[in-house]
């Protein structure tokens, strides 16, 4: 059996997941990255996307997160998400709503930096929808 490490996913409202996992894949702001046991200490911000973790007994966990950051330390890994929802509770309608919001943000953006950010969020959301 593969080595495990402590994985925690928390959002401001609650602790969603806390258990020993063998691997986790997180949508970092500069690309997805995977984490295994004994990973070197690492801190990254996240973009909207899907956090996946494989439990010690082979369970698959998937959560949709909207930004936040991931902290890997010697004691384990903590994902602090601005908002996190189990993938099983997500459907196309929810994503459509999010995409619509992002489109509005894009239309409201005042300067180039904001526009760029909004466009990025929008493209990421569309990507997730396509993958669903």
């Amino acid at each position: 059996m593969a080595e495990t490490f402590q994985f925690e996913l928390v959002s401001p409202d609650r602790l969603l997941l806390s258990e020993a996992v063998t691997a986790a894949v997180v949508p970092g702001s500069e690309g997805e990255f995977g984490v295994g046991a004994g990973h070197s200490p690492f801190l990254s911000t996240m973009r909207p996307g899907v956090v996946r973790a494989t439990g010690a007994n082979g369970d698959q966990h998937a959560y949709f997160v909207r930004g936040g950051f991931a902290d890997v330390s010697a004691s384990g890994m903590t994902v602090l998400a601005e908002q996190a929802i189990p993938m099983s509770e997500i459907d196309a309608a929810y994503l459509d709503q999010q995409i619509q919001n992002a489109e509005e943000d894009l239309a409201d953006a005042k300067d180039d930096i904001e526009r760029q950010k909004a466009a990025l969020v929008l493209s990421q959301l569309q990507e997730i929808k396509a993958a669903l």
Partner: protein
Amino acid sequence: MASLKDLKNRIASVKATQKITKAMQMVAAAKLRRAQESAEASRPYAERMGAVLSNLASGVQGRDDAPKLMAGTGKEQVHLLLVCTAERGLCGGFNSSIAKLAREHAKKLIAEGKTVKIVTVGKKGFDALKRDLGQHIIEKIELTDKNVEYSSVKQIADKILTMYDEEKFDVCTLFYSKFRSVISQIPTATQIIPATFDAEDDQAAAGENALYDYEPDEQEILETLLPRNISVQIYSAILENAASEQGARMSAMDNATRNAGEMINKLTLSYNRQRQAQITKELIEIISGAEAL
């Protein structure tokens, strides 16, 4: 001496009041459980956030290019007090103890010649502070939602951050009541801007810090994390407040119910006594009337 009818009315009205306080106590107890759960659920996030931040901060502290939210504006002249209280009264000393703490803090700062600005969250805090510190209150925010959402708290935080960016204040302190148990809530003041970290955490973190990899770089992460930390702190303060409020209301209403019970007992006793006295009086009148014949 009150007449029999008066006493009867008093007893009825105290009984009605007791029913109300009893109902309020039970409602508060039910709400307390939910509020307590969400307050406790928000703690891990705030704790992790604090740990990660102090980890990061120990690396940046003392550097000239440290973010403004951490290093401060270099002045201490204008203080912003963010006073979080409840929307409703009838919860014992809950609102007044937060207001008292804030008032003392404000008075001290004014005596030192500092400028004080106050933002109140919740109607009761505004009511309590408007009389003697009314001219310092720059904004009052009311939380009309039943359940506080992170997104609505974020708006408050954004407002404060914009004010900070515009250099409208130098130091921000958050006032709220920490929930310890139903009978004990502790009014607390926490400085949120510039951010402060426990020295103990820093030392523990410093050892690990050297090995950390950052993506994107340290500076950028800190810049996104610090504003988020502000909203998380305010959010957990408001959740703690909600739990404290219900706890305070529960014990206040419990006391009120018990007092009403005592009062009913006393009133019933004097009612019965008076009734007995009247019967005796009537009997004496009849007997002495018969004897006179």
